[in-house]
């Protein structure tokens, strides 16, 4: 609830010093497991043997407190395959460590981390699907984004994109069909929810097995919107061609937040210093995006729970329209802003500035009343509370196991917000609070979003004050960046920002050209969605729909 970081558990602080992590102490902890050490821009990378992954990771998790496996990046080099586990800590995400696992070119495989971090399950399935690394001892190594019958691994080096493919449309089988205690046991029923279904918020397919009205088994099936975002970014030049794509990951008006994720990673990779004035504009625009995004999350959640396309839904859309107008004035687009540039922003605030500030202030003045209205309509509503309080409960331990972030983590009392914990932009200069709720249920997650809207409004207000008083001769919106950006070869970086849905991270490896050699997106929704089976198992099916709504996933970001 404040900007102060929560106190740490000192027993798990191996190598923690005043000025960052002492990697020597961590290497000592792992002893002979560390074959080699690499310098990444964000952290050191320890190279380990492919058959010691579980041992190393569980040591780091149990004894050094790395409880957050943020991302698993797989890539193919000319002479080897490599998986990188990006580890960090929930109570201080600036303490990072990369575990680099090389595996042989002719038979790429290494031990799976899914037994240590549950979240690695899907991340490794994705790595298998797109790059083609086999993970031994993985609970369920299947394709996740591409159809089961796909040939080849598209992000591997010898993939031929022109080869024909066959995709089948087969009825899904009930996985629990023969799972009966006796002959008289009633049958379970298999229900496909999606991929075309109003409650799935896009093209998600949830394979559900029902016992009566309760969920006996549930598995989200994704990949219906896998539009090769990583490949697109690897084909684009740093300076101009990549920036339009982030807008389309989390497309619910969260464009600037996503652009910032790429901008932050690329700027740190190429050592670009962003002018303060541009940082303030970025901060303001990003928080507007957050408001727009949370408004839609609330609107669609109300649509799921009330089944009401008229009242509550339209209130959310009404407020969004205003934010979108503000963003359109600033960026020139309603949804796909393409406003950030490496080293700054595309252009200054719209003229006349006073008029624009006036518009923003009008919006902020009206906001408390509107939120009150929404609280009256939604969170204060008895039916809504019956549906949402104590349903879809997610414990803080489960949150950490699955690497959930954003409002989902904060709704379960995990105090994790990168804007405060790993500061960027102008956030550490401003006065605002991180919102957490302790409930862990659907209600808490909605409440967190609504209260975050208030905090975002506070941030915007302070930014407007700053911008209004900014001296006219110091309005520098863009740093000096070379026309063609070629970061030094073999630099690696993982950087993340607090997107609307949580930790949005980007891994980039440069190879000395003007295009990234590997561009990996760590999407918050991908990890958040993994918690759905935990929340829904044994619950009633309407509660599952509410849980899905309160996770606030967006399929463009889940599938990328």
């Amino acid at each position: 609830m404040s900007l102060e970081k929560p106190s740490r558990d000192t027993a798990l602080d191996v190598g923690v010093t005043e000025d960052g992590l002492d990697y020597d102490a961590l290497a000592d902890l792992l002893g002979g497991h560390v074959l080699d050490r690499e310098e990444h821009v964000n952290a050191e990378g320890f190279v380990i043997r492919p058959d010691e992954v579980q041992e190393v990771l569980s040591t780091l998790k149990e004894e050094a407190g790395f409880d957050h496996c943020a991302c698993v990046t797989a890539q193919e080099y000319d002479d080897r395959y490599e998986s990188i586990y990006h580890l960090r800590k929930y109570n201080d995400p600036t303490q990072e460590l990369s575990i680099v696992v090389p595996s042989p070119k002719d038979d790429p495989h290494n031990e799976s981390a899914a037994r240590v971090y549950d979240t690695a399950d899907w991340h490794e399935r994705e790595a298998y699907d797109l790059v083609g690394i086999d993970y031994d001892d993985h609970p369920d190594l299947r394709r996740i984004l591409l159809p089961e019958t796909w040939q080849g691994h598209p992000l591997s080096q010898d993939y031929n994109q022109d080869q024909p493919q066959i995709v089948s449309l087969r009825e899904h089988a009930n996985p629990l069909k023969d799972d009966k205690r006796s002959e008289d046991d009633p049958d379970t029923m298999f229900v496909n929810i999606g991929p075309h279904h109003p409650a799935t918020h896009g093209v998600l397919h949830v394979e559900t097995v029902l016992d009566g009205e309760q969920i006996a088994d549930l598995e989200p099936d994704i990949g219906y919107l896998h539009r090769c975002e990583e490949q697109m970014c690897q084909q684009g030049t740093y300076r101009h061609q990549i920036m339009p794509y982030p807008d389309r990951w989390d497309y619910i008006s969260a464009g600037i937040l996503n652009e910032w994720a790429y901008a932050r990673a690329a700027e740190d990779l190429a050592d670009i210093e962003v002018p303060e004035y541009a940082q303030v504009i970025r901060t303001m625009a990003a928080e507007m995006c957050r408001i727009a995004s949370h408004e839609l999350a609330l609107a669609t959640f109300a649509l799921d729970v009330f089944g009401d396309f008229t009242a509550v839904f339209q209130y959310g859309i009404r407020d969004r329209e205003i934010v979108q107008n503000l963003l359109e004035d600033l960026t020139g687009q309603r949804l796909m802003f393409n406003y950030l540039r490496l080293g700054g922003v595309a252009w200054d605030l719209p003229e006349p500035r006073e008029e624009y500030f006036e518009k923003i202030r009008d919006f902020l003045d009206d906001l408390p009343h509107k939120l009150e209205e929404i609280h009256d309509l939604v969170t204060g509503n008895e039916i809504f509370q019956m549906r949402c309080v104590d349903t879809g409960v997610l414990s803080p331990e489960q949150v950490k196991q699955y690497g959930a972030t954003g409002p989902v983590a904060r709704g379960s009392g995990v105090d994790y917000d990168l804007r405060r914990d790993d500061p960027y932009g102008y956030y550490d200069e401003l006065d605002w609070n991180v919102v957490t709720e302790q409930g862990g249920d659907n209600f808490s997650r909605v409440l967190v979003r609504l209260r975050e809207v208030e905090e975002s409004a506070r941030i915007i207000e302070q930014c407007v004050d700053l911008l209004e008083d900014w001296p006219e001769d110091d309005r520098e919106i863009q740093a000096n960046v070379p026309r063609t950006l070629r970061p030094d070869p073999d630099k690696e970086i993982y950087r993340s920002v607090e997107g609307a849905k949580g930790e949005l991270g980007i891994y980039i490896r440069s190879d000395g050209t003007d295009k990234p050699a590997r561009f990996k997106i760590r999407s918050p929704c991908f990890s958040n969605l993994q918690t759905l089976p935990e929340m829904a198992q044994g619950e009633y099916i309407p509660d599952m729909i509410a849980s899905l709504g309160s996770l606030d996933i967006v399929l463009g970001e889940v599938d990328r």
Partner: protein
Amino acid sequence: MSSDQTPPAAKDVSTQEARMGDGADDRFNSTLREAFGSTPFILTKFDKFMNWVRGSSMFMLQFGIACCSIEMIHTYAIKHDLDRFGSGVPRASPRQADVIIVPGTIVSKFAPRMKRVYDQMPEPKFVVSMGSCTISGGPFQEGYNVIKGAEEVIPVDIHVPGCPPRPEALIYGVAKLQERIAEGESSPVTVKPYELEQFGDLEQDELVDKLASEIDEEDLVMRYNWNDSP
């Protein structure tokens, strides 16, 4: 019987006025009624009448794919309010819908499902493709997994370009569709390279042989020949 009660003098009213009625029934009068004048009959071709009706009351399918669906939601919702044009009731089931707006990128895994949804809609049905992705694959055209336009899978009546199109653009597209329907025009069914077919009917080649153990003969499949795509 006294002769006090004389019948009221026949007033000089026109037939039109007589039909329009007055008093409490006033609310049934409409501009349309006024336009018809005295005749309660209109003379038109049945087909023409049906087309006019079709265009004036369209049920859209509630169908979201990607980014464009956000702008589509805004088109349905307040401010833009597509309902003003007689086409604003999104139906959750394809069996109740007659227009499908395709709002977003279609990828290989989704195309067979979209084709199935389209097939489930009753005739006559119309397709509005929204955004660049449904025209050519848009910004994702070079992706290994992306279908290069909705027309590869289903026939399309109206293309609305943009990434994403503004709500005004979508409204314009829908209005154009209504105009075309009212005039009885429909798009010629274009060549659809990607069809759902039974696996057993596919031409035998290396790939089919390889997948023979995984896919049943009767399973419906969609075969993508990326080289033949535009």
